[in-house]
C-alpha cells in the first residue's frame, strides 16, 4: 500500500493503517524540530535554521500522507452523524432500552 495514496474508499479509510502511525510519528518529530529550530533561529544559530527546515519538511510529508485519508473518513462519518447524535441524546435522557 503506497504511503502517498490519494484515493481511499470509505470503508478502507475507517481502518487503522500504517498511514496513521506515520502521520502521528512525523507530527511529533515536526513539533520537536520546530520547537528547537525556532529557538535556534532566534539565537541566529546554524543548527536552528537546519532544524527548523527539517521540521517544515516533516510537516509537508505528514500532510501528504494523511490528508487524503482524513478527507475520506470525514465524508463517510458525516453520513452517519445525525443518527448517532440522536442516540447520544437518548443516552443523556436515559432512554436507551430501545436499542437492544
Amino acid at each position, binding site marked *: 500500500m503506497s504511503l502517498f495514496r490519494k484515493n481511499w474508499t470509505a470503508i478502507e479509510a475507517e481502518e487503522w493503517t500504517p498511514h496513521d502511525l506515520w502521520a502521528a510519528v512525523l507530527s511529533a518529530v515536526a513539533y520537536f524540530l520546530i520547537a528547537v529550530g525556532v529557538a535556534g533561529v532566534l539565537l541566529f544559530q546554524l543548527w536552528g535554521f537546519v532544524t527548523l527546515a527539517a521540521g517544515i519538511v516533516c510537516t509537508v510529508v505528514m500532510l501528504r500522507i494523511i490528508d487524503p485519508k482524513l478527507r475520506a473518513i470525514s465524508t463517510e462519518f458525516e453520513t452517519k452523524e445525525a443518527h448517532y447524535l440522536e442516540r447520544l441524546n437518548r443516552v*443523556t435522557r436515559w432512554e436507551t432500552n430501545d436499542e437492544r
Partner: protein
Amino acid sequence: MTEMQLLVRFTPLDWMWTALFIILMTLCGILFYQLGKKSESEFFLAGRGLPWWLPAASVYSTHTATDTPMWIGGVIYKWGLRGIWYPFFAAWCAVSAFISTRIFRRSLAMSQAEWQNLRYSGLGAELLRGWLSGWQTFMNMFVVAWVSAAMGKVCFYLFGWPPWFGITFFTSICAVYVLMAGYWGVIMADFQQGVIAFIVITLVSVWAIVEAGGPLAIVSKLDALGQGWRANPFHFDGFWGLDSNHFYVMDFLTLLVMATVGGIGMGNFIDWYPEAQRIQSARTVRDAAYSIWAGGLSTVFRNSFWAVSILAFFVMFPAIESEAQYEMGWFRMGFEHMPSGLLGMFFAGIIAIHLSTIASHLNLGALYATRDLYHHYLNPEATERQLVRAGRWNTLFILLGAFLLGLFMQSITSWLIFALWLQAAGIWVPSILQVVWWRFNSWAYLSSWIANLMMSWLVVWVLPALGVLPELPNWVNFWLLAGLVALVYIPVTFLTAPDDRDHLVRYYVMARPLGWWEPVRAEAIRRGLITPSGDLRLEAER
C-alpha cells in the same frame, strides 16, 4: 503576593488601545447572543459546525494565559533553554490529532464525562460520568482562579492596584460575553485574542532580544558569564539522578514520552478537557484533527519565542534568586523597554491572553455542570431553553467560586507543575488503556483516579513534609506515581467483569478505536454492523 512593583505610566494612547480592545471583546457577546441562546449544542459547541482554524485559534489562545509567560519564564530562567521541555507537553496534540482526536470526534460526546458513558456501561460508567463532571466543574473554577490570580499579580506589578481588583475586574468583563453568547462568544473572541496575542508575544519577545544586544550578543554574553550551556536545549546534568536541582536526561525523556505517547489517550492532561470541546465543535473529523494539530503547534512555536526572550532577560539581569521576581521576566522586558504608545498595545495583548483562557474555562466548567450534572442527572427532560438558562447560571457559579479561590493563591510555577504534570501521573497509563484496550473497564479507570488523587498529594507534598520520603525530582515522582497507581487499577481490571458486550459493540462501531479490540470487532462483524476492508478486497477480486 510579591513585593516587587514597576508602576507603569500610561499615556492617553495607551489607555485608548486598552479601551478599544475591551469594547471589541464585549461586542462579541452582543453579536453572537442570538446564536448562543438557540440550544445546548449552540451554547456549548457552536452547533458543531466550525472550520478547523477557528478551534485551532481557540486552542492556541486558551493555552496562552497570563500565568503561562510566568511559568515558562520561571523554568527558562532556572534551567536555561532545556527548560522548553517542560511546556513541551503540548506535543500530546501532535499524536492526538491523528489518534485520540479522531476517536473522540467520532464518539460525538459533548464532554469527556459523556464519553465515559459511551465507552463504559452500567453503574461504573455513571459513577465515572458523575465524578468527572464534578471534578471538571471544580477544576475549571480552579483554573479561572489561578489565571485570575496571575492577572492580579500583573496588575499589582504594573499599576499598584490591589490584587482583588486585578483578579476580579478583567475576569468580570469576560464573563459578560460568555454569559451572553456561550461558546460562540468564546470562539469568536478567542480568534481575535489569538491573533492579537500572537502579534504581541512575537513583538515583545523580538524587542527583548534586540534590547539585550541581538541574538549573537545573547550567546556571547552567556559565554562571558560562564553560562553558555543555557543556550543549549540538550544540556543535561547526567543521565539520571535524584537531585531536584539538576536536569537529567531522564527528565527530558520522561517529558518527551509523557507528551507524545500520552497523545494516544484521552484525559491524561488537564488540557485535554478544553480540547475535547474544541474537537466536537469542529465540523468534520478532518477539521477536528487539524484544529488540534495546528493549535498545539502554535503553542510550541510561541514557547520558543518566550524562551529566547527570557534568555535575553537573563543576560541583562543574571543574578535574580527570587522565583516570584524572575518569573515576571517577560513582562519586565515589555514594560521596561517598549516605548509609550506601544505599552497600551502590550497591555491589550495581556488582557487578550487573560480573557481567552478565562472565557474557555468558564464555558467549559458550565458545560460539565449543565450537560453532565444538570441535564443527565437532575433534569433529563429539560427543554433547550432551560438548558441554556442552566448554562448561564453555572457560568456565574464558576465565576464567583473562582474569585474566592483566586484570592488565596500565591506561587504560580509550583502550582502549575503539580497540576499539569504530577497530578496526571497516575492516570496517564489508564487514560491510554481506556482508549486502546476493550477489557479495561469503568471500575479500573475510577479506581485509578481515586488512587492517583490520594497518592499524588501523599508522594509530592505530605510524605516529604513529614520526612518519610525525601523530596524527589519530578521525573522520579512521575514514574513512582505511575507505578503505585498501577498496583491498584491492574488488579481491579481483572477482578471485575468486562463492560457489557452490546454496549462495547455500539461504541466500537461508532468510534472505531485503535488497539486491542479484537473480540468486540469480531462481534461487530458477526452482527453485520461493519465490513472489514479486507473482505471488500476479496469481493472485488472475486
